[in-house]
């Protein structure tokens, strides 16, 4: 165990994070902290930069300015004295192992079965023996309620089932942090519940989660912290009882009046 991970340092720490795409500045100084074991829900209008921020946390996007740390370590860079070095591809890949990510459009590997999807990274990245990886993968599929669908290809599964496989796939790497990028936005309304149930279970087990979502009910019930982002800055952050139930900022109130 590293000392950084246990207790004192936050799991995610962002300080003035900036991100540009060409000339548009998508993130204009995001600062937030997520403690270990905490569930943080990020809400905000579309185009506010919340998904981009999430993608910065595992370096799928490179930040242009500011500081972003996961578990006390800089994301995508290494500090030596006052100089900052870009990490090599191998090093970036190594840091991503500990951060699970679930995508809006599932992004399951369509040419592999549910079981194959969950086993892929442990076998290819960690070099786990196939038999051990299979045992672990079956246990994870059981945990998301899909033990009987292990042999199914993604095209044979419903959206909700696919997203649960995607969660199991991310968990197979035993991450210390899970990122969810609008995990229920591509689902038919009647399938949203089964995915949120799995996420509730994860939260109850103490997983640190950063969730970009439009599910205000979920945020209110499960989140320890809700962060409202608009136009690339954090407008308001705090417990759901404050941010969702009694927002201080007019922009937050305006947004919530449209989605609630």
């Amino acid at each position, binding site marked *: 165990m590293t000392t950084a991970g246990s207790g004192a340092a936050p799991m995610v720490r962002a300080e003035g994070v900036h991100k540009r795409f060409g000339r548009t500045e998508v993130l204009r100084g995001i600062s937030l902290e997520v403690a270990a074991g905490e569930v943080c829900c990020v809400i905000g209008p579309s185009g506010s930069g919340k998904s981009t921020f999430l993608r910065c946390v*595992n370096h*799928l996007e490179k930040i242009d300015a500011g500081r972003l740390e996961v578990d006390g370590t800089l994301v995508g860079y290494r500090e030596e004295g006052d100089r900052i070095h870009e990490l090599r*591809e*191998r090093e970036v*890949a*190594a840091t*991503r*192992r500990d*951060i*699970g*990510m679930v*995508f809006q*459009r599932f*992004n*399951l*590997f*369509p*040419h*592999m*079965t549910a079981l194959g999807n969950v086993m*892929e*990274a442990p076998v*290819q*990245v960690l070099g786990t023996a196939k038999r051990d990886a299979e045992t672990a993968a079956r246990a994870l599929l059981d945990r998301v309620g899909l033990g009987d669908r292990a042999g199914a*290809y*993604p*095209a*044979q599964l419903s959206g909700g089932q696919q997203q649960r496989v*995607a969660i199991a*796939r*991310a968990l197979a*790497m035993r991450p210390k942090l899970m990122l969810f990028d609008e995990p229920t936005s591509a689902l038919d309304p009647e399938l949203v519940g089964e995915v949120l149930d799995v996420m509730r279970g994860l939260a109850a087990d103490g997983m640190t989660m950063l969730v970009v979502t439009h599910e205000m009910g979920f945020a209110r019930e499960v989140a320890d912290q809700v962060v409202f982002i608009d136009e690339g800055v954090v407008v308001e952050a705090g417990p759901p009882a404050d941010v969702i139930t009694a927002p201080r900022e007019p922009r937050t109130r305006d947004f919530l009046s449209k989605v609630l």
Partner: protein
Amino acid sequence: MATRPDDIRAVPVRHPGRWVAAAALGVLVAMLVHFLVTQHKLRWDVVASNLFAHPVLVGVERTVLLTVGCMAIGVVLGVVLAVLRMSPNPVLKGVSWAYIWFFRGTPVLVQLLFWFFLPSVVASLSVGVPFGPSFLHADSKTVVTQLVSVLLGLGLNEAAYMAEIARAGILSVDAGQSEAAAALGMRRVQTLRRIVLPQAMRVIIPPTGNETISMLKTTSLASTIGYLELLGTAQEIYARNYLIIPLLLCISLWYLALTSVSYVGQYYLERRFGRGAARELPPTPLQRVRVALAGRPGQGLG
């Protein structure tokens, strides 16, 4: 609910145009068959006696060998070129672009002759430090044989076409797939090998089958440098007996047979890489025959 109404019994639409077209085509086909059967100068007896003659079989073997060899070079080098072409490194990208530009821009027969006659200008080949000392020497005539010049000529040309096919396949895979793999900690090469290429294969295989069939026949260019594959063998035989048409018919039957075999190979490859693309894989022809025999006898011809 009321009782179910009777099925509609409508008078079908007539298609006189189709009957006329079918009749006209029927007459043309009948004329062709009549010509093939009654024209005694076609000498089907010569076709039959040469079909399995030893030199022809050797020619078949060489044609197959050339096709497999050239396609292997083409596919492997083509995938490498496609990956280079999509590299962020401008030098690699440029080299790949220039390769494709050159090899697609000059006739394949010219390239074949070029490799064959190269030893006349470059007498020896050596391996070593560029512009420095070398360790391995060889006379280029012993290295660049007829076979090697055909493999180089057709294989390197094919690579340029396969590069574009492979690139199209790689581009057809959703970017979310690479992102998901990256998020799991997979490296670029792993992602390409395990995630992207297997999915790209679905798009790559049909045009590659097309290229293979094309290559099967392009190998006949090897006869121009005196390599005795199917066409070269036929030419050698009819140079002696002047039975040109019968021998061309004979090797045409072989080309048709080989093409048909490659159809079967393509079918099973497509099936293999189609996993997950559809909810159910279609049955193989063999399975279909089995179902037809076991399940519903008499179906199909009734």
